[in-house]
């Protein structure tokens, strides 16, 4: 019911700066120099954040001329929302069945 690959995702997103990066990338791919500028952080710091996000499978790099373009990978985020969706589905089915069972089971009292 829960996705086994979520731990690195949550760890990567535990940091506010990395969440900011993810939020920015959700608007579209961005070259690394633009990201460094947008967040006013050193190349080294950015590189470390990107490494963590990449190893969690949240971003992908594409070579564009002399720089890397960073792109968000959407699949891991789908898992974040599907736990709740799945559990909601399960309970909706259960509680619909419960209604039927109660109607069948009711004895006049």
């Amino acid at each position, binding site marked *: 019911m829960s996705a086994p690959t979520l*731990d690195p995702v949550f*760890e990567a997103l535990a940091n506010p700066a990395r969440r900011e990066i*993810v939020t920015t990338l959700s608007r579209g791919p961005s070259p690394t120099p633009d990201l460094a500028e947008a967040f006013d952080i050193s190349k080294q710091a950015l590189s470390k954040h990107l490494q963590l996000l990449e190893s969690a499978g949240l971003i992908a790099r594409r070579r564009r001329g002399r720089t890397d373009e960073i792109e968000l990978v959407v699949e891991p985020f789908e898992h974040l929302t599907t*736990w709740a969706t799945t559990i909601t589905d*399960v309970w909706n089915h259960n509680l619909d*069945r419960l209604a039927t069972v*109660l109607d069948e089971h009711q004895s006049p009292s």
Partner: protein
Amino acid sequence: MSERVTIERTYPHPPTAVFDAWTDVEILGRWFGCGVDTLWQIHEWDPVPGGAIAVSMEIEGQRVEMTGRFDEVDRPTRLRYRWGADQTVTAEFRATTDGCHLTVTHEGAIGDGMAPVLTGGWSASVQQLDDELHSRLGHRVGRRRDAKPS
């Protein structure tokens, strides 16, 4: 990280009848499942505080087992049990003029190693992140393949 889902229903039956449908294994076995037409086989279901839960089902030829333990059993108002290692289900039964209002709260912690996430203020910002990503992912986040409308 802990996530929470709350589902509410109203049934035209007294709280005792709705409550008993959760504790009487014969009734429970006819509705308690996972998905459209998959019901749990109930091996242990001992609705007293500390009582054991053990259920199983076959999904695509694979046997899935689940265990749990009752935390609170207060007929006919409240039932709470642990589900698996890190999930909790609470059922609250409230009498209405013509029946019973049922609230089911399912809470789940996803995986271990969540401490850094919790201290990182994850829960405060998850909604914001979700909102931000929603438009981009919305069309791809659907129901599970096997979940058909009933």
